[in-house]
């Protein structure tokens, strides 16, 4: 028995549920895309096949995604770091990146970026 799962298209590296919307899942993988998925209320177990079409596709990274993190306090902000040595802040209302930070090394946790750019995030 095959269980219906999400197919993100490339090897998934990081994924996280939104702290505000329990049904919203963000995934980031080797293709450099950050994808947002709306999970049905009953889960995926009632579906016939795998879910392949995401709810949103955030495309501006030039390398594979390393981390995907939602902002812990702002419901429409998402931060992703990538192998292209940037961290991007995405506005989920516009589905576009609103801030790009160049980082000198790959970060283990994007919370550090969030705390350093709290002032900037206050504008959005």
């Amino acid at each position: 028995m095959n269980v219906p799962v999400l197919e993100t298209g490339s090897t998934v590296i990081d994924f996280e549920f939104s702290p505000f919307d329990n049904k919203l899942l963000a995934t980031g993988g080797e293709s450099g895309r950050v994808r947002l998925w709306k999970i049905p209320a009953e889960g995926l177990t009632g579906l016939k096949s795998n879910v392949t079409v995401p709810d949103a596709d955030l495309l501006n990274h030039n390398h594979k995604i390393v981390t995907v993190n939602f902002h812990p306090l702002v419901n429409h902000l998402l931060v992703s770091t990538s192998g292209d040595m940037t961290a991007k802040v995405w506005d989920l209302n516009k589905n576009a990146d609103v801030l790009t930070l160049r980082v000198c090394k790959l970060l283990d946790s994007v919370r550090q970026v969030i705390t350093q750019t709290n002032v900037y995030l206050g504008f959005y």
Partner: protein
Amino acid sequence: MVSLAPEGVTIANESGSSNVSTPTTSNTSSPAVSHANTGSDNSSPNPSGRREVFVSGGQKIEYKYIQAKTSDGAAFIIKQEVKIESNNVITVEHMPGEVLEEDDPESEFYVPKDIQITRSSKYKNIFGKPINQNLFYTNLRVTNNAMATRSLSANPDFFAVPWEGVAGRVGVFSTKVQYICR
């Protein structure tokens, strides 16, 4: 340690309290207690003449041990508190390795210390119990791929695990629906 009043030394024993102090000599200032060995002789096992300084909360308390004798000739030690007034310099006197007098069960003033029979542990009476098997999510095919740095993301409604297979699969399961994977 027996604390005694400076005058009228009273020793409690089985027969009741009996006053054993009678001023016999006239040249002592306190008739019942004759001070002896008040110098700082730290090397002797007798703690008389020893001083202890406790500093707690910026307050300095000093104790002095004085050897005294009753009129019967029985020696005992008085622990006396020394008042220190307006001493801004707080120093702790480190005593050299000196052993306080051993407990002598034959002594008249022997008070046995608290003997701890039961072992004290904060984990005593705490027993783990495995959760019921029908509350497990078993047979989840989590990927072995080392690229997946995160192995679980969960909230009260769903949990997600990286799934084995191609195309970057992520298994998302509702915690409200009982799920049996065969």
